[in-house]
């Protein structure tokens, strides 16, 4: 050490300045990379807008209220039925996935023994690892045929709910419907919601839980009073992130939905369509206007998912919880 300390002043000065230059250069490079993230998101928005404009100008009917999609032929097309279908399938998927996902994460964090819990966590995460096209293939050849019984049951006993009504007796055979798509979506977003809420439940202060148990609470009362209240912001964010994923899911839905351009509340009968699935299914045949029209619909999807994600992240950032390791 002393050798270095007594070394010539000139060389140590030079090394100090080259050290500073090296630092400045490296910092600039990383800053550039960081800035590229802004540029990239901006570029996505700009290019989608620019390439959507030609179709929006050519559209002979209102883009927001038209239910048909014929950009290359009669040039009448609109996003009404697609946006409706996207929201309907995603909300139904949420309705099915949220209770199950929360139940699983509660079981894994509050009930299961620690060793088992780790493996159960892996298993639910594996659901997220399966590629969406495999879900689509499985949906077409396994799930839809096996759902017929359930659909008949729902229409028979719950047909008085408009969602499950079946006036023309269409549900008793194999059909691609909103309901089937929602079930596939529910299975796909379940692991996301479960993984995030698991992390959230895990962050609850153990002292709070132990205090509740020490006061004589049953396990469920402990969960209700000590675990759930501080977790709500995180769980809300998890649900919204799952919702965002459902909105944008493409391939699996493209394979199991009915490709019908119509606003229809009846989820069991053949029909339904979503923005993303429409892009995948119509892209191959699309001409110049067709592609531009699909980009316009993609822009709408981008804006909706961006809004949902921004809101979800805002909730979690404000609550100060850390769910980042989960997704």
């Amino acid at each position, binding site marked *: 050490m002393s050798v270095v300390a007594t070394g010539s002043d000139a060389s140590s000065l030079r090394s100090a300045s080259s050290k500073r230059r090296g630092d400045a250069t490296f910092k600039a490079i990383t800053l550039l990379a960081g800035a590229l*993230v*802004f540029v990239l998101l901006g570029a996505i928005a700009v290019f989608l807008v620019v390439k959507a404009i030609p179709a929006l100008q050519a559209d002979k009917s209102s883009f927001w209220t038209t239910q048909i999609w014929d950009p290359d032929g009669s040039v009448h097309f609109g996003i009404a039925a697609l946006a409706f279908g996207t929201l309907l399938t995603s909300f139904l998927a949420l309705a099915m996935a949220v209770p199950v996902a929360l139940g699983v994460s509660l079981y894994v964090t509050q009930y299961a023994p620690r060793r088992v819990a780790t493996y159960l966590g892996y298993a639910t995460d594996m659901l997220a690892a399966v590629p969406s096209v*495999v879900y689509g293939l499985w949906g077409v050849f396994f799930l839809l045929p096996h759902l017929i019984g359930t659909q008949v049951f729902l229409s028979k006993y719950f047909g008085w709910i408009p969602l499950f009504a079946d006036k023309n007796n269409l549900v008793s055979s194999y059909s691609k419907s909103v309901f089937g798509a929602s079930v596939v979506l529910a299975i796909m977003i379940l692991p996301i919601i479960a993984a995030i809420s698991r992390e959230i439940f895990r962050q609850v202060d153990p002292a709070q839980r132990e205090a509740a148990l020490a006061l004589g609470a049953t396990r469920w009362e402990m969960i209700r009073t000590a675990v759930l209240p501080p977790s709500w912001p995180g769980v809300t964010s998890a649900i919204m992130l799952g919702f965002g994923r459902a909105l944008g899911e*493409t391939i699996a839905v493209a394979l199991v939905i009915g490709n019908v351009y119509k606003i229809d509340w009846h989820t069991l009968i053949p029909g339904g369509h979503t923005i993303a699935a429409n892009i995948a299914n119509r892209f191959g045949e699309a001409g110049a206007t067709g592609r531009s029209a699909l980009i316009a619909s993609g822009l709408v999807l981008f804006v909706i998912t961006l809004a949902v994600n921004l809101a979800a992240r805002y909730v979690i950032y404000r609550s100060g919880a850390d769910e980042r390791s989960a997704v």
Partner: protein
Amino acid sequence: MSALTATGLRTGALPRWALPSAALGAVGLTVLLFALTGFQGTVDFIIVAAILAVAAVSITSWAVEGRRRAKDRLATSAALCFLVLTLTPLAFVIGYTIKLGLDRFNLNFLTHSMAGVGPLSSNGGVYHAIVGTLEQVLIASAMAVPLGLLVAIYVTEYASGILATAIRFLIDVMTGIPSIVAGLFVLAFWVLALGQGFSGFAGGMALAILELPIVVRSAEEMIKLVPASLREASYALGVAKWKTILRIVLPTAASGITTGIMLAVARVIGETAPVLLVVGNNDFIQPNPLKGAQASLPVFVFQGAGSSSQFDVQRAWAAALTLVLIVAILYVSARVLTRRNALDGR
């Protein structure tokens, strides 16, 4: 008050066999119900039996142990049912893919392309699709990994205050961008605005957009885990900050970062939508990712799933099995690597 303590202390206790037999009784009731009425179907049977079993357990408990215990039992058994409900589709997806995939999955399938194979032929394979998928993912990683590491370094080592928060926030938001939007962006930018054709490279760009945020976040987590004492020791020896980062911080976090990259690759390798939009499909082996449409495993499965030919469907299942196997290999190696990672105690 006296009533309260009385119910609190003098609630009956159920013998150990009571709840299992209540559940069993519910299953028996379901069998009867299905035999006598029009109910049918395995899935329906399981669901009805589960609901009745939960109800039977709760009611038994309510009658003997009181309301609070009954609620607790209800919550416990409902959580357990939800767990089973989650694991069931997993088992069915994996099991069905293996079962149907094995029909056509063999060495011949992995080493042949679809060149000259029509929909009515049972021959052909996915060699061309494997080549395409690997190239596209490699291109995506070549872009996303260095860029992602730099962003992670900037956010953890240099940026402070609002800029760091803003970049972190945007990266988080980027993870929520639907894959089809990434595909549409590359379509609008690369194919339509710049006039480039379909290519594996374009697909690589779209996948890079999806891979980038995953890489950034995992690298960020790993860099944060590097002990400050290592950095301080390096600074004390007069080493520049940038050299400390490259020589000390990154090597220490290397295995964790590699794990993150492998998980990111596993995540994007099955992405179908962007590849469908900007790479297209090809029956032939197309080793050049810069020139023309290229095959890929996900699109191969997608096309097969929509085909009316049973042979296409069989090939789609075998290709799906191939894809799942690749993803599984990536996940397992990532796990093995995590276990060896000294930094990550989890």
